[in-house]
Structure formats: structure tokens, C-alpha cells
């Protein structure tokens, strides 16, 4: 019996040791190379960013670039409040950028590292660099609507179609008001009640309130017939074989910003990454991957002039739509967002 108990002690101790060796052998940290975590939106936009920024930067500098998804004001805010900051660089729409600045969630940018003289001063603020301009456009399946579709038809319940709009209130509220006849100059302050009433006409035909990546997947999958999506996403869906078209009527254009999380784990690397990403060559490469307009005027010179027609900044496109007012969203987002959330869930 004595032997037996010694045996079991032996087995247990040995196995425990073996187990801990197996476990900790793997977690032994190697000397960490420099790294930077970039949060974006997934799908074809992130694929384009990976090809234009992440991969070449990693290749050129040896820094490990980890791309992740889920960028959004609410997430940035929650992460900062929870104190568990795992992101460094975040790609933010102008409304998210403005709100993140207001709430003090961002690290001031270090313009001794970030050099981009080709970018107009209005896009180089204390906390962010505006790096592309994109449009939110009405897009439709050519199988279902060979003659095209007007924004007014989008909100006409007698035009039966499976519709998709944005998950967030931004852009869709503007689109509804523009489609209802509000002039771009008179758009702000937004008449939220009126916008929700307009959307309410076709709400039962809206099958998805989704982020841009999901919406592109729905388009390619044939799950929706019409969608209100970023121009680059629908462009890439068409490139991938979707029989779709889109227009610039009542489009809403906006700027996308690079920002750095306050207290980010790799602040220095974040600045260096942003500097690389806003250089003309990289900006031009992104536009080749997905037709969003570069803010760096030197990048435009590197591009095929034909590409310019796909960009929201092209004068013929710009005059058909409106520009999102980040300042209004900065002041009103909290109340609009909570209304919107309960509205879309009912």
C-alpha cells in the first residue's frame, strides 16, 4: 500500500510537471519584433489596405502589422473606458473621429514623424489625418432594375425590392432626406423625425442594416436587390462579378481618418505606420485597389485619369450629392444613435 501511494504521488507529480512543460513551452515569449495593430472594417476595403499599406510596410520595415476589424466610435470609447487597449491605429469615419476627439480618446499625432505636405491642412488635425474621401451611393442589381433606380424609388414602398442600408445612422438619414427632396445646402441640422418617417415607408423591405463589408457580401451573394453602400465596395463587388450598377444622385461623401488610440501599446510605431500610409505612392496604390479618393494631391498625379471619374471628388459626381457634416454629428450623435438603435430593432 505504501508503494501504491508513492506511485500515485509519482504519477501525479510527473504528469503535472509534464503538463506544465507542455503548456509553458509554447508561451515562452520570443524577443518581440516591433509591431502595430491597425483596426479597420474588414472585407474588400481592408483587403485593399492590406495590399496598399500593411504588407508593403511590413516588408519594408520588418514591423509586424496586424490588421483587425470592428472599428467604430462605440468600440473605441468602450475600449478606452475599459482600459483594455489592444489597438494602435484606427481608421475612423469623420463622425467617429470628431466624437473620439470630443471624448479625449485619441493620442495627439506626432507631425515630426508624419510628413505629408501633399495633404491639405484641413485634413491634418491634431488627432487625425484624413486619408481618403469616399461616397455612400445608391446601388442596384441590374438583373432586377435594368433601367436603374432613383433615390426616390428607393424609398417608394411600391417598388418591391430587398434593401440594405447602413448599420449606423450616419449617411442613411442624410440619404433619406435628400431623396425626399431636401437640398444639400439645407440638409443640416438633420430633421431626424422626417428622415425616420421616410425610411419607415420601406422599413419592412429593408432586410439588412449592416456594415459595409457585410453589405458587399450580401450584394455578391444576391441576397439584396438594392443597397446604400460605399462607392468602393460596390465597385469591387462589380469587379468580383456582381451584375450591379450605382449612381451618384443623392450620394453622401465623407472623409476617412487615421487616428491613434490614447495609451496605445505601440504609439511610436503607430506614427511611423501612418506616415508611411499617407505618402503619395501608397495612397495611389489604395485607390487602385478600391476607388476611394486620396487626400494627398501628389497621389492624384500618379493615377490614371480615368480612375478619377469613379471618385467622389470628381466634380460631376460631387455636384449630385452632399457632404457629411461631422460637426453636426459631433453634437448630436449620442441622442440620434440611441433613437436609431431602438428604431431599427422594432
Amino acid at each position, binding site marked *: *500500500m*505504501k*508503494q*501504491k*501511494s508513492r*506511485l*500515485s*504521488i509519482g*504519477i*501525479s507529480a510527473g*504528469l*503535472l510537471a*509534464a*503538463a506544465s512543460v*507542455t*503548456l*509553458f513551452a*509554447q*508561451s515562452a515569449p520570443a524577443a518581440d519584433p516591433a509591431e502595430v*495593430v491597425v*483596426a479597420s472594417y*474588414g*472585407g474588400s476595403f481592408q483587403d485593399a489596405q492590406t495590399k496598399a499599406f500593411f504588407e508593403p510596410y511590413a516588408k519594408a520595415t520588418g514591423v509586424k502589422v*496586424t490588421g*483587425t*476589424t*470592428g472599428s467604430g466610435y*462605440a*468600440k473605441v470609447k*468602450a*475600449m478606452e*473606458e*475599459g482600459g*483594455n*487597449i*489592444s*489597438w494602435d491605429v484606427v481608421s475612423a469615419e469623420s463622425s467617429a473621429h470628431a466624437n473620439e476627439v470630443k471624448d479625449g480618446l485619441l493620442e495627439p499625432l506626432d507631425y515630426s514623424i508624419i510628413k505629408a505636405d501633399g495633404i491639405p491642412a484641413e485634413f491634418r488635425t491634431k488627432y487625425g489625418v484624413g486619408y481618403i474621401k469616399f461616397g455612400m451611393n445608391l446601388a442596384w442589381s441590374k438583373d432586377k432594375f435594368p433601367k436603374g433606380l432613383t433615390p426616390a424609388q428607393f424609398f417608394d414602398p411600391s417598388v418591391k425590392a*430587398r434593401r440594405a442600408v447602413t*448599420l449606423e445612422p450616419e449617411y442613411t438619414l442624410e440619404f433619406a432626406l435628400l431623396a425626399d427632396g431636401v437640398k444639400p445646402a439645407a440638409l443640416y441640422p438633420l430633421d431626424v423625425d422626417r428622415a425616420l418617417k421616410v425610411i419607415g415607408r420601406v422599413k419592412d423591405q429593408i*432586410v*439588412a*442594416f449592416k456594415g459595409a*463589408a*457585410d453589405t458587399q*457580401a450580401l450584394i*455578391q*451573394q*444576391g*441576397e439584396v436587390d438594392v443597397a446604400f453602400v460605399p462607392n468602393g465596395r460596390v465597385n469591387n463587388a462589380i469587379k*468580383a*462579378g456582381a451584375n450591379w450598377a450605382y449612381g451618384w444622385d443623392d450620394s453622401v461623401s465623407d472623409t476617412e481618418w487615421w487616428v491613434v488610440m490614447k495609451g496605445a501599446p505601440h504609439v511610436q510605431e503607430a506614427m511611423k505606420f501612418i506616415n508611411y500610409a499617407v505618402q503619395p505612392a501608397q495612397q495611389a496604390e489604395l485607390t487602385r485597389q478600391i476607388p476611394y479618393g486620396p487626400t494627398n494631391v501628389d497621389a492624384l498625379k500618379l493615377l490614371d485619369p480615368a480612375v478619377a471619374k469613379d471618385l467622389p471628388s470628381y466634380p460631376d459626381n460631387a455636384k449630385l450629392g452632399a457632404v457629411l457634416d461631422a460637426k453636426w454629428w459631433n453634437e448630436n450623435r449620442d441622442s440620434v444613435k*440611441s433613437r436609431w*438603435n*431602438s428604431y*431599427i*430593432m*422594432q
Partner: protein
Amino acid sequence: MRRNRFIVWQRFFLLTPVLLLLLLAFALPLLNIAPEAFGGHAAERFLRIFASPVYRTVIWTTVRISLEATAITLVVSFPLAWLLSRATGIKGLLLGLLVLVPFLTSVLVRTFAWLAILGQRGLVNATLLKMGLISEPLPLLFSEPAVVLALVHSSIPMMVFALVSVLRRVDGRILLAAHTLGANSLRAWIGILVPLAIRGIQSGVIIIFLFTMASFIAPAFLGNQRQQMLAQVIQSEIETGADWAFAAALGITLAVTATIIVVGFSMIARYLSRWQRPGTLPPSVPQQQAEQVDTALLRRPAAPPKSHLRTPALVRFGARFVQPAYLGAISVFILLPLVVLIPVSFSSADVLIFPPPGYSMRWFEKILGSQEWLAAALTSLRIGAATCVLSLVLAILTVLGFGRHFRFQGAAEALVLSPVTVPSVVFALGAYLTFARVGLVDTETGIIIAHTVLIFPVVYLVASATYSSIDPWLSLAAASLGANPWRIFRTVTFPLLLPGLAVGALLAMLLSFDESVASIFLSNLSVKTLPRKLWEGIRFNTSPESAAVSAMLLGVTCVVVIAGMAVVLGRRKNLPLTLQSAPEPLP
């Protein structure tokens, strides 16, 4: 006296690793949710949940969808469980496989398959369009029925397992007796089988309800914003590592809501099964009831012949086809999502279309040529192997530690099995919050620990069943021939345990390889397991690439199930042989 103390010590040392694991990696993480949720501005946090129409809607949606899925699962699984409990031979084997294969297939894979079935260009719409029954594809995806359907499909195997164990003990002649007394089939089922199976129904309903309450994969893929469920919100809070306290508060809300409803279920079940424990009732009540029942029975015989006489031919004709029709329908329902994946994964199209416009190997080529998928597969393999080894070791120690006569066997077993009774999202949430404090989130070690907690109970069950089938006299015989305990273990117990351990090892590998919930919670940027990568892939791009990965996972499952059956059947066949050949090595 001395001997007893040795046995106690021996048990203690054998059981220490298991206790440590359960304490540190299971109990602690679960307990950790509460201080996280109630720390700081707790009132504000819970107010944010219960005062907001959005979260109230989410809670109500979660409960509603879970109740729907549980009720439907119970109704469709009950006949299958009954048939399985009566089946023998090849029919039993096939029915067992029908339940086992989907059970061992990743929930992620099973849910994803519904996209290819219910989509605008999916199987159902393509078939209906071709038959000319509809002119426009039906909107099937992104709706509550789609979510419920997928949840029911995932739940059937678990429900069947819960019911079968109870139904096996029912004496089949009781139905015959009911028939002779004039009850038709439906009446006999509802009046006799259902009450007799009430224990199985109770445990099945509770298991399924907890499973559906905690599901986030089905609503994320197949629902829209109106089908958002609590676990989905928790998962998205955790994915970005955002507001831990808020996620913990949501986790508490989920656990409390689920507990309240489960207690309700148990009360209903106790009420319905009160006749099974007449002793616990006040003495006067059963007498009254007995009288009522007696008179009711006395009055009954007059009625049944009528019902029998009405349309006997039609009833008999229908009855003959009810069983095959049901079996056919349920088999199609269970197997269809798995079968559909195979043609879709060979599709030449860029998107999920059924039937595929052409066939090619391009998606498999793409996967096998992709560094990311291969790395994910290797990660999953490494985690699976480590989980397998750890689970096996712990299971052996636990089985030996419990021994044959353990006074607290019941309580101890309940403790060991407790990880499988907690909703996986709640455990994953607790593990995330705890592991993050010690730097184990987003590491392989963290996932291995979580997988071991979740999977070792299953291995223990298999090992313990095998152990109890070993004749205890063999060890005594060996001891009387002078073998020391280590030698007895090495030459007698271990070889006899081996088939059970082999099946346990296969199960552990497979369950770890397919496990999605803990993998999705505990991995983020640097460690990506196969299910995690698949989860990301499906969310951003529903291409046949994901179908190909799913088909490969399904293939792995089938291979493992076949290997497991070979082990079990091979052992039975070889048993007489080993006994015969055993004397040979003797000089």
C-alpha cells in the same frame, strides 16, 4: 486504520490535478464575472441594460428564440429518441450515426450550411423555382425562422441523447397494454411514454434551453438586427476587448435569466411527474387522486371501440407509413446541411450558389495554398493534441482516484461534469476576463486550458464507463501473484482501459479541433484556430472557400467517427482472440 489513511492520501494525490484545474480554470473564471460586473458603477451599468429598450428587446428576443427552438426540438426529437432506444443491430447503428455525426460536427459548420440552403440562390429557392412553385425567390435568410431552424438542427443530437437514456428503461410492452385497452398511438404516447420520460424531457429541455440561450453563431449568420441575442452582444463586446465590465454585466443578465427559466422548467417538470414520487405528497391527496383515476379508468372502456371503429383501415394504412415518413423527413433534415456543403465546396462560382454552375477544385487549392489557413490548421492541431493529452491524463487520474467504491462518487462526478452544464458563452466570458489578467488571452496556452476544462469531462465519462466494465478481480489476481500497483496499472488496468482511452482521445482531439465558442472568445489577433478563422471568413465573405474549409472539417469528423467505431467494434471482435492468445507468451 492505517490503510484507510493511505487510500485517502492516494486519492488526494490522484485527484489534486483535477481539482486544481476545476478550481483555477473553471470555478475562478466563473466567479470572476461577478466582481467585474458589480465593480465600479454597477448600478449605472445594469440601468444601461434594463432601462434601454434596445437591451430589453435583446433579452426578450433571446428568451423567445430559445423557447421556440427548445419546444420544436423536443417535439421533433422525441420520436427519434424512442426509435433509437428500441433499435438494435444495423438499424440502431445507422440511427446512432445519424445523431452522432452532426453532434461531432462543428456548430460553425452546421450553421454555415444553412446559408447555402436558405439563401436567395440557395437549395430551397432553387428547387422551388425549378418546380415552378414560385416565381421570385423567397426571403428565407435573416429571419427568425432561419435562426430557430439552425438552432433546432444543432440541438437535436443533444436532445436525443438526453431522452434515449431514459426511454431505454421504458418497458415496451406497456404500449401494447395501452393498445389492448383501446388507446390509439397518439394517446398512448402522450398518456404513457411522455410521462414516463419526463426526467429525460426535463434534462433535455434544460440542456437545449441553456445551449440556445448562449448561442451567438446562428443569430450572427442567419438573423438580422431584429434577431440579436444576448450572447451575440457579449461576444462583440469581447471581440474588441472593449468594455469588460459591461460584458460581464450582460453575462450575469444572461445567466440569471436562464436560471430563472430553468427553475421554472424544473418546477413544471416536478409538478407533472409528482405521481412518480407519491411518498412526497401529503397523504390525503394521493388517495383522492387514486379514487379519481380509478373511476376514470372504469368509465373508459366504453369509449375506445368507437374510435377504433371509425376509420380503421385508413388509420392502419396511415400508421404503417407514419414511421418511415418521419424517419425519412428527420434524416433529410439532419443530414441535408452536411451533404449540401460538399457540392458547394467544389463550386466554380465566386459565391455560394446551389446548385453550383460548375465544379472545380479551386477553393481547395486556394485553402491548401494559403499560409493563413494552413497556419490556422496547425494551430488547431497543436491545441487539439495538447488538449487531448491533458484530458486523457486528467481522466485517468480521476477514474483511478474515484476508484470503485467512493462514498462521494455522485457529488464528485457532478463536480467533474460541471463544465459541460454551464453555458459555454458564460464560461468563455469568465475565462476571457480571468485569462486577460494573467496574459493568457490570445495565447495557445489559454485556449488549451479552456478546451481541457470543457473537454476532459467527456473523456472522463468514456474512461469511467470503460473502467467500470473491467473485472475488479483481475487486479486482485495480479496483486496476489505479486504484482506491485504500478505493474498492475501497466499490465492489467491500462491495457483494458486502452480502447476507452482511444475513443476518448479521438473525441478530445475532435471536440477541440471543432470547438468554436472558447476559440472565438480567447483568440484575437495573434492566435487563430481553424474555427476562429472560419468565423471571420464567413462573416466578411460567404464564399465557397468557407464551404471548402467546412467540408474538410466535416471530413475530419467522419474519419474520426469511423476510427472510433473501428476501435469499439475491433475490440469486441478481438476480445476472444486476445484471451486465446494470452497464454502463448508464457514459457
